Every structure is written in C-alpha cells, then in structure tokens.
C-alpha cells in the first residue's frame, strides 16, 4: 500500500470522527445518565429497537428473494429493476415518506382501498414506522446480498442442478448457505439504517410518544426545547449503533472476506 494513502484516509476518518467528538465535547457528560433515563427517552429507545428489529426481519424476508432474482434472473429489463430497487438510497427520506403517504395515506390509492374495505388506517401507526424503515433499509441488504451472489458466481448452483437437484432444493441447499455471511452484514446494515431513520418516519408515520416517536424523532423533539437532552439522546443512539455493529462484526467481516 502506498503510504500517501494515509493522508486522504486520515482526512476521511476525521470527517466521521470529529463531529462525534464535537458532540462529546459539547455535552455535560455528568448529566447524560439523568437525561437518557427519562420516560420519554426510554419509550423512544424501546420503540426504536423493536421497530428496527421487525423491519430488519421484513428486509430479510423480502430482500433475500429480491436479491436472488436480481442476481440470477436473465429476464430483460432486470437492470432497470435493479436501479429502481436502489431508489430509496438516493431519494431524500422526506420524499420517501411523502411517496409512502401518497400510496398508503387516506387519499392514496392503496390507503383508500384499505380504509374502505378493511377500515385500516396505516399512517400514524407503529406499522407505518416499520414500513418506512423497511423502505429505506432494504436496499442496503439487497445490495450486499446481490454483490455476494454476483462475485460468487453460480457454478455451485449449476453443478447442483446438473446433479439433478430441483430449483427449490438448489436455492435452499446451495444458494442460501452461500448467502449467509453476506446476509449477516447486510442485516446489520439494515438494522443500523432502520435505527437511524428519521425523514420518512416523521413524514409518513408522524410523531407520537410510544406509537411512532422513535429515538431519532425524540432527539428532534428535544432539540426544540432542551439541546442538552437532545445531544445526550443522540449519544445514546450512537452507542446503540456502535454496539450493534461491534457485536455483529465477526459475521460482517466474514461477509467481506469470504
């Protein structure tokens, strides 16, 4: 490795680390414990962890098949589809939230149908939080899985089918095990993204304690009234995210070194 790379690498690292240091310096660390054990903060943390867990499961249930289809299908137009799947990555989250509202809101076509036929209203519910989080987090899972599938190639799968395995057996016995390491890192990424989701949630799900006000939203609410407690909550969010990534790190590393 050329040693000059250290210069931009250090700058890059500083760009990520220094703002967090800024937060730490600005915070009265002695007050942090009392600020983060408020009822509102704990409720928000619990809601965040629960919704992020459920949306990660949804990402896996929907994203794994999608990644396999994108990586293995030879149908025309699959490239366009791939671009569409990545859309939530580039859409401003608020726009994502608006899009969901226009679909599932009371006047949105699907939302209207749900309301008329089943009396179900999606916005302003915990379900809306999960949908918003899944919407923004799923591309992370699909991208890591699809990358793994493509770089791994399909020779094992082809061999399995020449040996007489049916497609479903190939998928279950060959494709899925090959995917596992990438699935680990992809799921962690999705979880972290879901945990930090803000724009789509506040636009689509609203903000109400215990129902839709996740930790990022609580930080935003607190920033209006008491910056210190907002910063303390932000630190809590950072700690949770770092712990999640650190705990899952072995699997995530496996995913990249595979």
């Amino acid at each position, binding site marked *: 490795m050329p040693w000059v790379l250290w210069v931009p690498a250090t700058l890059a690292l500083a760009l990520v680390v220094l703002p967090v240091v800024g937060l730490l310096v600005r915070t009265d660390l002695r007050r942090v414990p009392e600020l983060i054990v408020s009822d509102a903060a704990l409720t928000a943390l619990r809601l965040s962890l629960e919704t992020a867990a459920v949306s990660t499961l949804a990402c896996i249930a929907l994203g794994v098949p999608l990644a396999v289809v994108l990586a293995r299908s030879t149908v025309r137009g699959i490239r366009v589809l791939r671009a569409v799947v990545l859309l939530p990555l580039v859409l401003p989250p608020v726009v994502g939230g608006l899009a969901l*509202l226009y679909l599932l*809101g*009371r*006047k949105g076509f699907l939302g209207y149908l749900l309301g008329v036929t089943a009396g179900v*209203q999606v*916005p*302003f519910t915990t379900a809306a939080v999960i949908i918003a989080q899944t919407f923004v987090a799923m591309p992370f899972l699909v991208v890591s899985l699809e990358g793994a599938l493509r770089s791994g190639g399909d020779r094992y799968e082809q061999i399995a089918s020449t040996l007489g395995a049916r497609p479903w057996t190939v998928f279950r016995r060959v494709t899925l095990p090959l995917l596992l390491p990438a699935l680990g890192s992809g799921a962690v990424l999705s979880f972290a993204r879901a945990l930090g989701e803000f724009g789509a949630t*506040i636009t689509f*799900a*609203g*903000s*109400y*304690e215990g129902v*839709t*006000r996740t930790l990022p939203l609580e930080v*935003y*609410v*607190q*920033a*209006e*009234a008491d*910056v210190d407690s907002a910063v303390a909550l932000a630190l809590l969010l950072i700690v949770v995210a770092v712990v999640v990534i650190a705990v899952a790190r072995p699997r995530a590393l496996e995913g990249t070194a595979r």
Partner: protein
Amino acid sequence: MRKLGALVAAATLMITGCGSSSGGSGSETLTVFAAASLTESFTALKTSFESAHPGTEVKFNFAGSSALVQQLSNGARADVFASADQTNMDKAVQAGVVDGAPSVFATNRLTIAVAPGNPKGITGFADLARGGLTVIVCAPQVPCGSAAEKVERGTGVTLRPASEEQDVKQVLNKVQTGDADAGLVYVTDAASAAGKVGQVDFPESAQAVNSYPIAVVKDAPQAGLAKQWVEFVLGEQGRAELQKAGFGAP
C-alpha cells in the same frame, strides 16, 4: 489596455460598493430571522420596505422559533429576530443574541383546521376528543403545541392526537392531504390555506394567545436598517398587513 483599466475600475467600484455598509447607493442586505407562521405577512411587507429603502434587499430565514434561536446562539449572522412566542424570545435574550428590549408586534390564537365543508361536523374543541377522529397537534415543545396544551388544561378536554408535529405547517399539511380529520393550527395558517381547509373557531382559544415579539440582533451587520424594519413592522403598514393575515393587535 484602456478597456482593461476600465474593467478593473468597474470591478473595484463593485467590490467596494458591496463592501460598504453605510453608503447610500450600494446594495444592502437586511437579514430577518422570523417564525414560520410569519412567512406570508413578512414576505408581503418586504416589497413595500424595499421600495421605501432603495438599494436595500430583505432576506428571510423562516423556521421554527426555537430553531432560529439556536442558529443565532451558534453564531448565525442576522439583523432582526421575530419569534412566534415569548418563551423563545426570552431564550434569545438570555443567550445574549438580541439587542435591547423586544417589542410585541402581533398576537395569534389557535383554531381547528378541518377538511373543506367540515364533513366530520366538528363544532368545538370538545369534539376533538371524540373517538374515531384523527387529530394532529403540535408537540408541546413548540409554541403552537404549548398553546394547545394550555387550552387542554383550561377546558379539561384531553386530546389523543395521532401525531405531535414539530411545526404548525406540518399539522396544516396533514389536514390538507386528508390524512388528518382535524388539526390545531393558528388562525393565520388556516387563513393562508383558505379554500383548502375549513376553519372551526372555538372561544377557548382565548386562553392561549401567543404574542409575537421582535428585536434587533446583537452586533447586527445592518443595525440601522434593522431598527427601521422593526419600526416598520410595528407601524401602520405592518399592522395592516398582519391584520390581513389574521394576526391580532398586540
């Protein structure tokens, strides 16, 4: 060569013209930080202020009052600060970002925004506690939310809102899109969306009247102009424009 000289001279003139803050002919920019609910009326006032002060341009930063206080405390450059409530102006005074005593220039009160034609038949504040209604309010941390809380306490009616939004325009939006049946907004916001939302006034809103204070920012780059803007807003023309938007007299 002469051309080049002229160009340099012109450029120098332009630069110094922009740089001078007291020169009568140069363009001067007055930066006004104002609460989001002042968007329509202040924008309307801008035109007449600019024509009364040739060479002056008024620029706005409209946002939630507390966000503005925060920007100012963190060193944002501005000349005037207009808040949607006393609390945030007090914060600004405490943080030492305004100069002199603020003056109240308007008042505002809550109303219920509903879908046009009021399909849910809402007649008063107590109706908002009815089951089966999706009601949206502001979070208690922002001025419109603390006003809503005051009304709740005063009337003994407890709302179960579907969401507590961060600013009043978000509440209005959700009523406009039809995702909420009713929302507590300021009369001025309901007026600005007349036609797209209906308005149900309720007498209890008198219990939570917000006052809007305005002040010159400390070390304002255009302190002189800033004073003139404050006087202009407090004066007859300002009064008329604010009244048109639905604001009450201070």
